[in-house]
């Protein structure tokens, strides 16, 4: 399989997406709705590139286009740059302060204030919904349609299935989701609106609240990680570290006690 990217032949394996091939060969292609661990949804469209097919060129999104045969790809033509610029300008209106957009704006010469700001605090990359479906409690989803589309829980109610894993918080590129741990509860707050509440585990040793009261086993299985017993512990990580340290110290002391005569001699 012969892949030409921006005029140079690059290394690629059959079935790899254009983005994978580009990353591997150090070619830059912008992405906003893609992380390698999740199934691509190709919603943001910023990764669109030109695929040369004979005399015609076709526009395809590189995050989900699988290369199956010889191909020639152009990743940074004036036409692509122009369209990416408009894309960033349009997105900026819904998320004026996003760092992710500022960087791209600089690269493509986009004017972040070209369209009136409508502070929606979300670029609609859908990553939170996809990660939640995959490793979380399948709480967040794209709801509504058209301009009204938004990330929300079903029927906009507090979700009963949230496991408080905070994957959504980690993955959101514009920090639109946060968690608040308070009064023994974890709240997941999506764009200022509470999406779920999960009870926190109380440490049997020191009494502070830590990880959510949830059996994460099935979720981790789904993610292919296998169960992690630490999640079901009844003591908080600090106390468990402390007790581990104590146990290590005790063992060391026991060994020491046995070996002490020789040590004395050496000393």
């Amino acid at each position, binding site marked *: 399989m012969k892949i030409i990217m921006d005029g140079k032949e690059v290394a690629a394996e059959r079935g790899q997406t254009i983005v994978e091939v580009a990353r591997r060969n150090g070619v830059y292609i912008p992405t906003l709705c893609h992380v390698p661990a999740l199934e*691509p*949804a*190709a*919603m*943001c*469209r*910023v990764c*669109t590139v030109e695929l040369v097919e004979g005399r015609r060129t076709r*526009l*395809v*999104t590189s995050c*989900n*286009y*699988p290369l199956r045969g010889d191909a020639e790809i152009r990743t940074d033509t004036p*036409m692509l740059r*122009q*369209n990416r610029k*408009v*894309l960033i300008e*349009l*997105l900026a*209106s*819904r998320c004026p302060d996003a760092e992710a957009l500022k960087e791209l704006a600089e690269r493509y010469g986009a004017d972040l204030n070209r*369209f009136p700001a409508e502070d929606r605090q979300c670029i*609609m990359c*859908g990553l939170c919904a996809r990660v939640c479906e995959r490793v979380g409690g399948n709480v967040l989803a*794209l709801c*509504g*349609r*058209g*301009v*009204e*589309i938004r990330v929300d829980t079903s029927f906009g109610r507090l979700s009963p299935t949230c496991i408080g894993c905070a994957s959504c918080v980690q993955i959101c590129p514009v920090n639109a989701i946060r968690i608040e741990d308070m009064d023994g509860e974890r709240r997941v707050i999506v764009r200022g609106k509470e999406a779920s509440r999960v009870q926190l585990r109380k440490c049997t040793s020191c009494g502070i609240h830590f990880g959510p009261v949830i059996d994460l086993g099935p979720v981790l299985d789904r993610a292919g990680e296998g169960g992690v017993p630490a999640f079901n512990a009844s003591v908080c990580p600090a106390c468990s570290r402390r007790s581990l340290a104590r146990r290590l110290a005790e063992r060391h002391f026991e060994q020491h006690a046995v070996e002490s005569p020789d040590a004395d001699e050496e000393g």
Partner: protein
Amino acid sequence: MATAISTAPDLAWTKKISSPQELASFRQAILASLDPNAPRIRVCCGTGCKAVGSLDVLEAMKTAVAAAGVDVHVMPEVKRTGCHGFCSRGPLLTLEPQGLFYQRVKSEDTAEIVQKTIIGGEVIPRFLYKPPGSKEAIAKVSDIPFFAKQTKLVLKRVGRIDPFDIRDAIAAGAYEGIAKVLAEMTPQQVIEEIKVSRLRGRGGAGFPTGVKWESCAGQAGRHYVICNGDEGDPGAFMDASVMEGDPHAVLEGMAIAAYAMGSDRGFLYVRMEYPLAVQTLTAAIRQAEDLGLLGQNILGTDFSFRVSVSTGAGAFVCGESSALMSSLEGKVGRPRAKYIRSTEKGFRDSPSNLNNVETYANVPEIILRGGQWYTTYGTERSTGTKVFSLTGNVHNVGLVEVPMGTSLKDIVFGIGGGVPNKKELKAVQTGGPSGGCIPIPSKFIDINVGFGKLAEIGSMMGSGGMIVMDENTCMVEISRYFINFLVEESCGQCTPCREGLTRMREILSRITQGEGREGDIELLEEIGQFTNNFSLCGLGTSAANPVLSTIRYFRDEYEAHIRDKKCPAGVCKPLYYYEIDSEKCTGCGVCRKRCPAAAIEGEKKKPHTIHQELCIKCMECYRNCKFDSIRIM
């Protein structure tokens, strides 16, 4: 709605037809029991005719026939709004075998019609149709230009058979195609025949049907045959009229497709707003299964094909192929970004063939008469006929089936009867909400309507919408209207369509409100090119067409709105006013009496004037002035 006017037949007498050959004798038996010269009266029960009392006429006619003791079959004719293009002249009757066409019939008239026409064989002149501008009344359906100039391959049985009685359809030739296929053709031969016909999909994109079938047939796994009956274009009802008027044509087409691709399972995806289509299709499937024409061991062979009807939530975007399959799977009807054809991996990740209603409806006839025969209709690259939904400022609105390659002029003037009220024709919009506007007067009036030709001039075939626009149509407002529709229908998942169209709607709204700015046209073009290039599905990649095509052909009209703050067509209210031409005004007083805002003043026989501060721009004076003295300023 349908049950009130349907006559569900008693099929208890039927048994399964056990071989393809037996279908022919079954058909002969039905034909023998029907006298082709037996009088029949069809009462149009389309929405338009029902609104003016056709159901009453239907009942009155039944009573009149019974009272006179004659043996006449009075049947409802279930068609869609505007079907004849004569809705304003309803209720309508057709009388067989003479082929007479009566219009504006009232319940009181039914006894007279039975006595004089049915028994006496006499034509009653006052019910006859006179084309606009003509003194000659036309008695026969076949002589009315609206019908005479059409070529009906897809609609041939629509309105002529009772969609709730399969015997009617069989008598008219339904299921002969599948019988032929099962008796004498291999799946490869079926595909070959479709390829020879060069049939292209009627759902919009015009993809060659035979090629699609071939690529689907070549895949491993269970195959699905799916029919797209979502028909979301506003004002379109071609697929509805086929599903409602001749459901067997679609079912037979699907069965033939299933045979060709080795499928045993099919789905008809019908929008929820079409309850009548769901009823006719469901009844048709049941009756066809009872007769062994669908379901297990069709016509006694080992070919089985089960098909069922699914209703969609009625979103325009659900007509898009991947969204439709998601919706069929019970998921959200949102297009999926996948670079894999559904013929390879579609419904339930299995090879699936999706075609439009009209595409399937073409299939049986192609099989019966051969692909070569089909190519005698239409042009080299666009064969066969196409059903258009002709609407807007044209005398006869309705469904029109013509060979591909018919000129716009023949459709709009020949069949449509031209523009009413002595107005100028300004543009023809084709292709549905994301089609384009073709400017007229121009050489384009002579273009041969086909897939390639329309695309060449910046419009498209789409599913066959055709809106005729007269001089009082504002092209900026038209593009705002379509963009608004598409913003409402966008699924919203991808950036270009969601953000781009919203911004375009905003810009167009401000232009029509007189707040357009210098640079707005260029901005519309810039965003429009972006949405066309970068969107995820066909909705987004074609959505800017109405804007881009009107800018291309009517740029001066945009400029007039933005620079001069004028709407030359007199549509955008803040951008025009009416003035009375004192030279032309005879002081007849019609406008003064008609004006609901009492804004017109003047003495009898002296030129009148309009008080601008009172005028609400309702157009009443403009429309009713016989002397053409009201001007748009």
